[in-house]
């Protein structure tokens, strides 16, 4: 990740964080579908990034969102968990020839099908941890599953829209 990419990544995280805090904080479609658009920041980190910085970056982003949500630890917990899963899931999804060195895990570069199978399970894992921790000991398991499923679908939908609208074809993140 060179300096220019770093700047544009920070910019991306700030914009996504602001949108999350200002517009999506109290949004819940039908009471079950939440949106965690800031996860696009973690999802679109380069394929070659090492585990340790990935975990630390996700922890930081989660903490940032938590400060505004007044749910300290909740987003952090789930985002770190998702970051932990990401390399293993990428390994499973590896195409035959391996990944291209310079490629990014974005919709434009990897194609629609790949992106769907990449982001949906990861956001589902995130939501599962998020809602389990949120309703610890009080919520029914089915309710958590229900919320997680629809939240991950909604998040991925919005992530696809964001990438189609704002990511350039060869964006240097």
């Amino acid at each position, binding site marked *: 990740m060179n300096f220019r990419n770093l700047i544009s990544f920070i910019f991306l995280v700030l914009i996504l964080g602001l949108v999350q805090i200002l517009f999506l904080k*109290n949004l819940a479609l039908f009471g079950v579908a939440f949106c965690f658009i800031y996860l696009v920041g973690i999802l679109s980190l380069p394929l070659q990034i090492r*585990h340790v910085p990935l975990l630390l970056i996700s922890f930081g982003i989660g903490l940032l969102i*938590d400060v505004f949500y*007044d749910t300290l630890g909740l987003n952090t*917990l789930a985002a770190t968990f998702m970051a932990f899963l990401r390399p293993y899931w990428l390994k499973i999804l590896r195409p035959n020839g391996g990944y291209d060195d310079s490629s990014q895990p974005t919709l434009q570069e990897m194609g629609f099908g790949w992106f769907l199978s990449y982001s949906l399970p990861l956001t589902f894992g995130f939501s599962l941890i998020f809602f389990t921790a949120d309703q610890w000991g009080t919520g029914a398991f089915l309710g958590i599953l229900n919320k997680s499923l629809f939240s991950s679908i909604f998040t991925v939908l919005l992530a696809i829209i964001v990438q189609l609208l704002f990511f350039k074809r060869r964006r240097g993140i």
Partner: protein
Amino acid sequence: MLRILQFLYKLRSFLLFILLEVLAIWLLVQNNSPQGAAFFNSSNAMAGSILETQSDIRDFFSLAEANQALVVENSRLLEQLNSLKMEPDSIKLDLDSVLSAQFEFKGARVISNSLRFAQNHLTLNKGSLDGIEPGMGIFNEAGVVGRVKSVSKNYAVGISLLNNDLLISSIIKSTGDFGSINWDGKNSQKAKLLYVPRHVQAQVGDTVVTSGYSAVFPRNINIGVISNVIQSGDPNYLDIEVTLTTDFSKISYVYLVENTQANELDTLYQKSELPDEF
């Protein structure tokens, strides 16, 4: 020894993961204890100012509604004031402690609020500089809203009534039986009235108000209206559902109440070794 170090180095990402998760869980637990003084929340200056700007913009569009509510509240207060005004020829008596001002009221604006979690919070635009202290009760003209949790110089964070952790001591107005209001985390318009014994004749439509037993709220602030009474499996208590009078999706201006004798009560409770409810 070298082998062990090499082994640990190989596992470093996993170990870091465990460390970060433990840290997050610690934050989560620490932050949820009602008395925990939290720095990392929306009462810190930067987060507060961003949320305040957002609320400025949003409130602009609900000014008419807020005005309406204030006018209604004002007229009600004027009416009360009128009935309390002394006749000019009346005799002035020394009041005893029953009538001395036990509660002080302040106003504030809600600049951030959440509804959708199991533990919801709200942020107010007043802080310790304006005399806000942790433990003060929050309500608006419709009913109880919550309780102040932590305070910074210019902002305060409150636990919303829509929070699993908050119990509010309350009574059924018509019968006088007391219980505790607690939110079950499902619907933002309903809460449960707990610990009401089975023999109580609770009717659908009865009003539930604060009891004044705890040192937080004065007596007779609205909480909700009973919407359902179920004789459930619990052998001791009724399962009562209450429709909250406060519409949490649009609270903008709130009042804060401070019990000036809270300290005295606390010491008394401690002396007599009673556990304080809050």
